[in-house]
Each structure stands twice: as structure tokens, then as C-alpha cells.
């Protein structure tokens, strides 16, 4: 007995050891199953995308990719594809993504403020308002193809019938209105997201602070701008980042509503552009290059979000 003690003393007790990792192994086994799926199905394709982005490869015309260095990148940024990529795709992406996020934020904020005043009816409104969130992009794409149809669609018919014929338009099929139409369609589905989060934030506001401002005689507008909004801003920033990230990933509705990128490629935002390059033109090398651009944008936003929200 004593001998054992001495041995264990001599072996471990002497050197001050650093063993802050005793649970490493068990914990790793909790993560391992996820890794077993994620590595082949995400990590490997991601690595492949990087590799592909340096290849010249049309999937239909040639069986094997050929290395062409940074030419794909060069083409998009300076070469013969740059007019399209920098002149159309990126501006369309920026307008769509920022436009939709901004519209949804403003509507969501306004509606949350209004709903917060109606304690009783709020529940019914919320239920009705949130339903579109559950619809698939494909359904929405077809549904709005039907609604926006210029001559016989219900939207234009209603506008004409109610004396607002001036407002009737070609919606998604006209160059001038294609982008706003896409933004409105997205807002129809996703404004509830902003609304719900902002409303939850409003309900969690420290009441005494808001009430103190009221007692201090601040007007409703002043209270909203100087007290409520600043208190909500952390939540709003997180919600906007979530929404932006989703919008960069957005294309299902567009794929249906704007079957070939919309009039004048108005809705060929970066993700849709990559899909068309790969799926319609079979330029897998170029599609991969666009994918890398998209990956960089979304990763920057995602890591900023995770840091900012202290999620990791």
C-alpha cells in the first residue's frame, strides 16, 4: 500500500502538471459523429470548390478540368466577364440584399411597435402574419407568378378594378419593376422574422426605463428614437445579420419567379448567377469561382455575427 503511494507520488505529484484537458476525449466523441458527416459532405466539397475555382472546366464539353491559374478570378474581376460580374451581378446582389433587409427591418420595426400597443389582438395578427414563413420558396415563386401576371393576375385586376389602374404594372417581367417586385415578395415572406424578433425584444425591454422616460415627459417619438431604439439595437443588429446571411443564400423564389435571371439579368444575384453558370451553362470552374466569392462574403458576415452575438 505504502509503496504504491510512493510510486504515484513520484510519478505524478512532483512535477507541477498541466492537465486542463482531462475531458478532451469524451467530449470529442460527442462531436465525432457530426464531423463524420460534415467532413465528406461540407469540408471536402468546399475544398474542392477552391480547387475547381482555379480550373477551366465545362462539364459538358470536356471530361477533365484543366488548370488555368487565377484566370477565372481575373476574368470576373478584370477580364471579359468583369462587365457582367462587376456591372450587373454585384450591383443586383447589393440592391436586392440590402433593399430586402432594409424593407423588412423597417416594416418589422413599425409593425412590432404597433402590435406592442395592441395587447389583445396581437396574438391573432401574429398568427396570420407568420404563416408565409412556413412556405417553401418554390410555392411562393409559383404563387406570385400567378398573382403578378400582368394581364389576368389578381393584383393588376384588383388595381384596375378599384380605379388604381395607374399602379398596375408588369411587376416581375419588366426591367424597371423586377427588382422591387422581388424585394416585396421576399418581404411578404420574411418581414415576420424581423417583426417577431423585434417584438420579443420590445417585450423584454426594461419597463422602468421606458416608463421613466414617459414620466420625464418625453414624447412618443422621442421615446422611440432615444430610448427604445438604442435599447433594441443589439437585437436588431443580430436580426439584420441573420437576415443578410439568409438573403445571400437566397435563390429558390428567384429561380421560379425569374426563370432566366429576370429581365436584363436584374435578379441574377450572386448565388443565382452561380447556379445558372453551373446548372445551365455547365461552367463548373467559373461557378466555383463565384462560389468562392460568395463563401468569403458569407463567412465574413457569419464570423462577425458569431463574435458579435457571443454565440461561440
Amino acid at each position, binding site marked *: 500500500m505504502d509503496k504504491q503511494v510512493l510510486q504515484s507520488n513520484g510519478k505524478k505529484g512532483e512535477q507541477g502538471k498541466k492537465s486542463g484537458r482531462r475531458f478532451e476525449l469524451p467530449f470529442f466523441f*460527442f462531436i465525432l459523429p457530426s464531423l463524420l458527416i460534415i467532413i465528406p459532405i461540407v469540408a471536402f*466539397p468546399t475544398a474542392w470548390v477552391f480547387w475547381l475555382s482555379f480550373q477551366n472546366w465545362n462539364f459538358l464539353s470536356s471530361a477533365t478540368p484543366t488548370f488555368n491559374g487565377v484566370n477565372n478570378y481575373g476574368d470576373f474581376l478584370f477580364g471579359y466577364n468583369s462587365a457582367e460580374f462587376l456591372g450587373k451581378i454585384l450591383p443586383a446582389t447589393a440592391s436586392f440584399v440590402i433593399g430586402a433587409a432594409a424593407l423588412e427591418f423597417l416594416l418589422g420595426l413599425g409593425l412590432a411597435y404597433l402590435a406592442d400597443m395592441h395587447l389583445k389582438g396581437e396574438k391573432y395578427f401574429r398568427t396570420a402574419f407568420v404563416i408565409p414563413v412556413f412556405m417553401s420558396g418554390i*410555392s411562393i415563386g409559383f404563387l406570385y407568378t400567378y398573382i403578378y401576371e400582368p394581364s389576368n393576375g389578381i393584383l393588376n385586376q384588383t388595381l384596375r378594378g378599384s380605379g388604381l389602374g395607374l399602379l398596375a404594372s408588369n411587376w416581375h417581367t419588366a426591367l424597371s419593376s423586377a427588382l422591387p417586385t422581388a424585394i416585396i415578395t421576399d418581404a*411578404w415572406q420574411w418581414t415576420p422574422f424581423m417583426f417577431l424578433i423585434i417584438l420579443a425584444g420590445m417585450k423584454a425591454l426594461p419597463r422602468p426605463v421606458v416608463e421613466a422616460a414617459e414620466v420625464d415627459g418625453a414624447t412618443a417619438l422621442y421615446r422611440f428614437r432615444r430610448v427604445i431604439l438604442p435599447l433594441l439595437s443589439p437585437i436588431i443588429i443580430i436580426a439584420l445579420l441573420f437576415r443578410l446571411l439568409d438573403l445571400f443564400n437566397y435563390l429558390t423564389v428567384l429561380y421560379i419567379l425569374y426563370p432566366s435571371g429576370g429581365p436584363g439579368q436584374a435578379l441574377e444575384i450572386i448565388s443565382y448567377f452561380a447556379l445558372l453558370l453551373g446548372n445551365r451553362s455547365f461552367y463548373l470552374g467559373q461557378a466555383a469561382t463565384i462560389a468562392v466569392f460568395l*463563401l468569403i462574403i458569407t463567412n465574413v458576415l457569419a464570423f462577425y455575427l458569431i463574435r458579435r452575438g457571443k454565440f*461561440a
Partner: protein
Amino acid sequence: MTRKTPRRIGWYLSAAVLVAFGVTSVFPIFWMILASLKSAIEIWNRPPLFIFTPNFSSYTDLFGPDINYQKFLTNSLIIAVGTSALSVTLGSMAAYAFTRGKFWGSKSLQMWFLSLKFLPSIVIIFPLFLEYRYFGLMDTQLGVILAHSTFLIPFSLWLMKAYLQDLPRAIDEAAMVDGASRLETFRKIILPLVAPGMAVTAAFCFVFSWNEFIIAYILTSNSAVTAPTRLTQFRGLEAIDWPHLFSAEVVSLIPLFIMFLFLQRFLVRGLSLGAVKG
């Protein structure tokens, strides 16, 4: 939390705005359901038809030999259930490890896992397509399940982390002092306690998997095509087969509507990935 009655006009005005937005949200769906009961001609009627004899033939066609929509519904069901089971199980395990343990690289690994929630499918879809062709996973339910779980495992991780963080650490520490191993603690103590959160997470995974388009579209061609993806086939070269399209849409919405009823109370938490408690 009663507040003093706001001025009447403001009250009515805001109520009107809310009602208008509520109606705008629901009306298109209502309009779609009506359309699914109309004939191809009635669908485009001028003025829009609200009163007509409902015609269920497009629904019966749907389940007839030509369209065979039940096949795609079954596919969707298998894929959505499989994906949510896989994602919630693995996501919860990872969430447990990340909330309870710190080890070398755990922080970076977690950041990476979380960020995968936002990885656009389009980034990996073409290499995945090539990979699936190589491994014979093309047009299989398993292939779609695995591909969907790549963003739903991270989703489950986000959400389950929030539920696990609500659980006092002392509970699992007590279990370990009481002699349970990590795995036993997870199975006997943690899992039963976060079961409600897992149900919510699974329901969200079901919805997202059911609705997912790009992966299901590129990685399937026939036997594993999902119900929403099948909708694209109603769009022909010339025209769209509207009556069947809409009845199929309505049918494919039913499972989502059931999930909606269940998830209503948990929407805020689910949609904000656990960032906001609703």
C-alpha cells in the same frame, strides 16, 4: 403591464394597419387554395372568381398514375423525418460537448460548425453533385438526408446550445459526482431535460428540410425527388399546368401547416437560432 389607453384615433389607425398586413399575409394563400379548386380557365378568369363550383379533379389527378404525387410526398416525408432525426441527435451531442467542455481547438471548431448554418448550398452543390455521382448517392433519399443535415446539424447545434445553456450546470455536475460517465449523464440526465427543446428543433428541421430546394433539385432526378421540388415539373416549355401545380402546392403545405401549429410558440427562438427568447 397595463398602460394607459392610447388616443382612440391612433388605436384605430394602428389596428387598421395591422389588419391590412395580416390580410396581405393570408390572402395569397387563400387565393392559391381557391385556384387549386378551379379549372384551367377559371384560374385566369376576368374578373377574379371568388364564387364558383369547386372542382376537385386536379386533386384526384394528383394521386393518379400520371403524377403519382404520393411518391414525392413519401420521399419528402422520409427525407424530412430522417434529416431531423439525424440532425437533432448529432446537433444535441455537439451542443452538449461545446456547452460543457473546453478542449484544445473547441472554440474554433465550434465557430466553424456554427458558421456552416450560413453556408450557401450553392457553394458546395456542384462538387457534391460530382461526389455523389462517384459514390452512387445521386437520386437517393439517403443522399438528400446527408446533404440536408449539413446545414441542419449546425442549425440544431445553434438551437440546442440555447436550450442546454438554460440548464444549470450543477445538474450535470451532480450526475457526474453521483458516478455517471459523460455519456450516461447525457443520456439519463441531459436528454430527458432538453427533450422539449429537441422536439422543437426537430420540427424546425422538418420544415427546413421539407422546403429545401437547391440540394433536393440538383441531387435528385427521379426516384428521390421531393414534393416541393416536383412542383417545378409542372412548368413545361410552353406553359404552366396551373390547376395541378396549385393542388400539389396545397397538399405539400399540409405537413408544414401542422408544424406551424406546433411551432407557433417557439418561433422566435427557432428563427433567431436561440439568440432571442420568445
